[in-house]
């Protein structure tokens, strides 16, 4: 038996470490550990609830805006504030822009190198690459000369002796299956996507002042609408947003989706690997009739158990019996004992590091081994993320989601079960990007119509002043980060934050085992992953990256006798 340690897991946000047992070329057990903590929940205590969004947004600079959204909603929920329709639409536009940006960046810059052999692109025939690209998409930038110039660029990299970010990649690994021409197309679009991504985020700059970390406001949005003033959202600013949305849709449909399908076509076996858990949770989002009416969200809310698409279970953030967190295997201490669980309103954050003293070679996985807590829904582990959103949406009978999923399954000539896999997760991300890009255009149309009808309200400030607040209040703000279900719980006392807890998507997916020994998404999905070469954990990265982790980690290897095959050099 070999224990593989991947630390750092790269091409993610944050610090994630995976330790895995490998037997006969397959992962048989896995442990996922978050190795960094900052203590935001402790820092938030005693502060002004209206400021919380800014602190929380810094939980992540990749999914940036959604933490702010969960935060302002938790405060609005606590204080019973209803925001104006325009504010809801503007928040939806920012949400959609975040998705379209983040998913494209994930696919090309964080995930593609698991499937695309950059060095192989050197062998490609640019003319042939163009023919393939043309058959897939009308993207005007594709041409033989263009692919040739990209190939030259890669050649420069490889021959310069300075491989930069491509140094020590798993080039030539037997698990890479794409023909050189498809590799070349993907590399070209890796560079295009880098250019494109800095444009689409301008939607955040216009509506929230900057990206990363645009600005939010309890009660609505900070940007004012005035069609007759240069200093507000006027025709020019709105037209700018409109053209960015159009550009976003074009890239998704002409580049991202064709590339995704082309890559998936060569990796069919990955529709049968990495399924992991069978339970899916989505809080849903994108209200079309206000946040108080979840039945009319674009992304439905609910839980699907045991992959049963015929039944959907209700999710309630304020029900103390539903969402609870364990710290049995996490470096925290609960006053009432470490095997119990707490609802986030009663949540506790007290550091209790009991891991090995660094530098260490492996974690004590029998005991506590992560800075992530372990959330459970009715004591069951849940997968969250794009796949969970599609599964819940499909089960809830959402027509847009059903159409896009059925159409894709038809094109792949495959049953719905292929979605429950590593590649299914990656495909789900692409499909929802396409949906969200079009929904963004709908919201944009509604915003224009509202303004046309004379509604320019963007904030409800009736309860802005803390003197209007009750002495005690508590609220929950639910949303869907690109990576999955995200919620913040707040308790307010004497106009200050008394307790604040974030339960983030990667806590659901990447947490350590619960008190009953139940595995979370990463750990569960890694079991069964094939490993052609234990020294090069390419296949493990595929499954881990399919979740788009928002933390950081590392791997070192042990031989079958438990000795190190590879050690990290410590000088």
């Amino acid at each position, binding site marked *: 038996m070999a224990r593989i340690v991947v630390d750092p897991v790269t091409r993610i946000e944050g610090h994630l470490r995976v330790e895995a047992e490998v037997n006969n070329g397959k992962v048989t057990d896995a442990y996922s550990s978050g190795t960094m903590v900052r203590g935001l929940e402790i820092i938030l205590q*005693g502060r002004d609830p209206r400021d919380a969004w800014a602190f929380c947004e810094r939980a992540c600079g990749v999914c940036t805006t959604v933490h702010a959204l969960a935060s302002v909603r938790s405060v609005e929920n606590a204080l019973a504030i209803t925001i104006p329709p325009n504010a809801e639409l503007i928040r939806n536009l920012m949400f959609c822009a975040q998705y379209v940006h983040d998913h494209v960046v994930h696919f090309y810059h964080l995930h593609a190198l698991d499937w695309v052999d950059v060095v192989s692109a050197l062998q490609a025939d640019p003319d042939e690459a163009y023919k393939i690209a043309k058959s897939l998409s009308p993207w005007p930038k594709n041409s033989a000369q263009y692919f040739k110039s990209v190939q030259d660029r890669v050649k420069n990299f490889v021959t310069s002796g300075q491989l930069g970010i491509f140094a020590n990649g798993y080039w030539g690994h037997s698990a890479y299956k794409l023909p050189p021409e498809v590799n070349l197309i993907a590399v070209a679009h890796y560079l295009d996507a880098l250019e494109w991504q800095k444009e689409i985020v301008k939607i955040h700059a216009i509506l929230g002042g900057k990206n990363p970390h645009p600005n939010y406001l309890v009660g609505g949005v900070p940007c004012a609408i005035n069609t007759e003033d240069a200093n507000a959202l006027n025709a020019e600013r709105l037209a700018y947003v409109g053209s960015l949305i159009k550009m976003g849709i074009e890239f998704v449909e002409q580049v991202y989706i064709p590339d995704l399908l082309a890559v998936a076509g060569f990796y069919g076996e990955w529709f049968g690997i990495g399924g992991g858990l069978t339970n899916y949770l989505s809080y849903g989002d994108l209200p079309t009739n206000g946040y108080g009416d979840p039945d009319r969200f674009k992304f439905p809310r609910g839980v699907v158990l045991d992959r049963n698409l015929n039944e959907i279970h209700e999710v309630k953030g304020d029900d103390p019996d539903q969402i609870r967190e364990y710290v049995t295997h996490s470096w925290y201490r609960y006053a009432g004992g470490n095997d119990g669980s707490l609802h986030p309103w009663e949540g506790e954050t007290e550091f209790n590091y009991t891991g090995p003293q660094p530098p260490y070679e492996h974690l004590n996985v029998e005991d506590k081994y992560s800075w992530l807590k372990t959330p459970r829904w009715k004591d069951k582990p849940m997968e969250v993320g794009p796949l969970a959103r599609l599964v819940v949406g499909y089960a809830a009978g959402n027509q847009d989601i059903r159409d896009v999923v059925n159409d894709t399954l038809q094109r792949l000539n495959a049953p719905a079960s292929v979605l429950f896999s590593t590649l299914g997760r990656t495909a789900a991300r692409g499909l929802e990007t396409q949906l969200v890009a079009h929904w963004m255009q709908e919201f944009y149309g509604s915003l224009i119509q509202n303004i046309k009808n004379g509604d320019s309200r963007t904030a409800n400030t009736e309860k802005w002043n803390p003197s209007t607040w009750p002495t005690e209040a508590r609220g929950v703000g639910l949303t869907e980060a690109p990576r999955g279900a995200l919620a913040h719980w707040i308790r307010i006392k004497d106009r200050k934050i008394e307790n604040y807890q974030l339960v983030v998507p990667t806590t659901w997916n990447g947490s350590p085992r619960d008190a009953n020994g139940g595995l979370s998404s990463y750990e569960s999905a890694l079991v069964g992953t094939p490993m052609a070469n234990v020294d090069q954990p390419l296949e493990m990265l595929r499954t881990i990256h399919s979740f788009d982790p928002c933390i950081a980690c590392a791997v070192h290897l042990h031989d079958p006798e438990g000795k190190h095959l590879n050690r990290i050099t410590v000088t």
Partner: protein
Amino acid sequence: MAADQPSYWEKMKQHGYSRRDFLKFCTYISAFMGLEASGIPRVVMAMQTTPRQPVIWFHFQECTCCSESFIRSSHPIVADIILDKISLDYTETLQAAAGHQAHEALQATMKNHYGNYIMCVEGSVPTGNDGVYCCIGGRTALDIVREAAEGAKAIIAWGSCASNGCVQSANPNPTGATPIHEIIRGKPIVRVPGCPPIGEVMAGVIVHVLTFDRIPQLDGAGRPKAFYSKRVHDSCYRRPFYDAGLFVESFDDENARKGYCLYKVGCRGPVTYNACGIMRWNNGTSYPIQSGHPCIGCSEDEFWDNGPFYNHLASFPGFGIESNADKIGLTVGAATVAGVTAHAVYTNVRKRRLINQEKLAQEKQGQPDTGNTES
């Protein structure tokens, strides 16, 4: 660094850029760095002859917003240069390799380019509990950063985390989050604060180092003067409303729709040194104040503890500067100036009166204490 490596200009040529594109780029970069036109030939010369600079980019206690901002750097050729002109040998966010292969890439650069690599740090370093709050590859961030700093030619502390500790160092700083300059001594350290810094500022700092083979001129706080020598307030396009005493009283009021000054809803522009008002964000598209939200002062030390953000500043040095300016105006005494100055004095008096009234009203309404955020 191998001498036979191609220069920036050679690489650009290979990528199909014309000489004209190259010169345009150099001019653009020179403008970014605040150089006079006479400095442009030096940039051209440097870019023609300099090979790729090895760069190690660490991630510690951070949210990756600095990396995200960096890749937003707007000029198309800037993005290309950053990918092609530096050798980004270690960056957990983008590199292909993981685990021990990633560490080997890091070790190789530290060994082969000892004394010549740039070390970029994104994130603060936790010093509490012997550093167990941030471990990579089983080692503490504290251990890693100390080792890598030894062979670094210069250190760039990206963003507020590495420059001043940022959000995790806010009261009560549960992990002992510490900025880089308090850990590493005896090395040139450029602090580039902001949460995150503007992408073009980050690109500008890198290009400065590459072009002149030395770090940019820094102010007393270790920040590049080119981008951090002016207050947001000084370059704010809403400044005339401030001077005229015209303020947004609450979000989405009539004054907000007219784009009046955000000072009374908490703007930190008067005490914040950054280039937001001049360069703006995302290729000059907007900045927080332009989009209706007050500046939260994210590039200032300990800004998280200077809240609540929506309570306006009780006083700030700007008043002094403005009243000085008024006095200077008065001593000049020219008739044409006198009228303008009298108006300025009047608006300042009116403004202060308005602000004081507001402060009293806030106190009566029992808003949370400013700055007291102890748990």
